């Protein structure tokens, strides 16, 4: 019976090569993970809730609908309430078009404002023009028209649960960018990380864009005057 030969430790160069291999594998894994981790923008990107016109789109803290039975309207100059009830309405002419979008908005948890903007096919965004400070029901008497004035513009309106607001939003957009517009809405004046962003396709194809451009009125009013109640 022969005696077993004693096991020699592996040569020094093999231990070194093994350690180097382990370090390289570890470094590669770290590099791969760093390359593939979500970016800052991806981690805090809004959660998009998609919808279409005529649908009630519920999101976290609010819901939006663009009624299918109320038409989109376009105009060349936007007329907003004047400083006083006797003053002429303020005129904001556009080199493009003013687009009026009907909306119904409701907050479902806490009182807040809903921010709205349009996004075109090239990713450019157009914010809704701000609501005037005129109080609802303010007397209006100008140009032979008299009554009480009510703003239809809902941009920046303070909302509370249980009180849905129906009205319109007004956007100034280039006349050649109507096709493929989407309306987007989020809660509050600024988006917080991973906020819900409601995205509604306005359903404007080439034919409808042409029709809107053709039907654009010279003046588009953000308010109505109800007479006989002064």
């Amino acid at each position, binding site marked *: 019976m022969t005696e077993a030969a004693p096991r020699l*430790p592996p040569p020094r160069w093999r231990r070194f090569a093994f350690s180097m291999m382990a370090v390289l594998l570890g470094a590669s894994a770290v590099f791969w993970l760093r390359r593939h981790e979500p970016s800052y923008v991806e981690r805090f990107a809004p959660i998009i809730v998609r919808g279409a016109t005529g649908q009630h789109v519920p999101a976290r803290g609010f819901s939006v609908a663009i009624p299918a039975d109320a038409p989109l309207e376009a105009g060349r100059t936007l007329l907003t309430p004047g400083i006083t009830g006797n003053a002429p309405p303020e005129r904001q002419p556009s080199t493009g078009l003013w687009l009026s979008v009907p909306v119904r908005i409701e907050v479902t948890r806490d*009182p807040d404002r809903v921010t709205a903007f349009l996004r075109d096919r090239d990713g450019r965004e157009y914010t809704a023009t701000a609501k005037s400070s005129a*109080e609802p029901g303010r007397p209006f008497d100008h140009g032979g028209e008299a009554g009480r004035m009510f703003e239809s513009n809902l941009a920046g309106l*303070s909302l*509370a649960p*249980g*009180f849905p607001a129906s009205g319109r939003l007004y956007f100034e957009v280039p006349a050649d960018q109507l096709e493929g517009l989407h309306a987007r809405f989020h809660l509050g004046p600024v988006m917080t990380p991973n906020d819900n962003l409601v995205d509604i396709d306005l359903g404007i194809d080439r034919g409808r864009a042409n029709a809107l451009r053709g039907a654009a009125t010279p003046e588009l009013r953000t308010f109505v005057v109800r007479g006989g109640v002064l």
Partner: protein
Amino acid sequence: MSVAGWWRRQGPWLLGAAVLAAGAVAGPYFDRQREFRIHRADAARAVPAGAWGRYAGAEWRLHSVTVQDQTLLPRDLQLPDNARVLLAELEIRPDPTTTGESNVARCALRLRDGRGRSWRSAPEALVAYGRRAGFALDCERPRERPVGQPYMARLPFLLPDDVPPAALRLELQLFPLPPEDVEPPGTYLDMALPGGR
């Protein structure tokens, strides 16, 4: 190379790595815990109906919440058809200190129902009416009341008429939040309504 020798040589390094790893986990964990405390549910300090609650250098008591008679509201008040005006009467006893007196004015009140919906006091729609009716916009001491005396703040709310007052609780917080040495982050009073839940 013996096993015992290996542990003796590598032990301090392994221990150091373990301490660093534990720190790498524990640091962010405690950071997140601190952030979480600001929004935690137990930041609410419950106050039973009719009792005094201590908060931000003052004592607070919800005296009553009443529904305003629709027929007594001004006709030119442009309110939604389903709206109802509620009036909360809040009794305030600030501590006779600068902190107590200066904190109370910036109270922010909300009525919250069982479904998590909330409504702020003195909303925009009621500001003009509130001024005419002599209601408060915040919890500031009325000018005619001497410093050091308790006083009553009457604050209006606008709620839909399908919310029964018995389903509501009043939340009281200072805005901006009081400093950490006055109240722990995020603390607020959660007051039961007289006869409510």
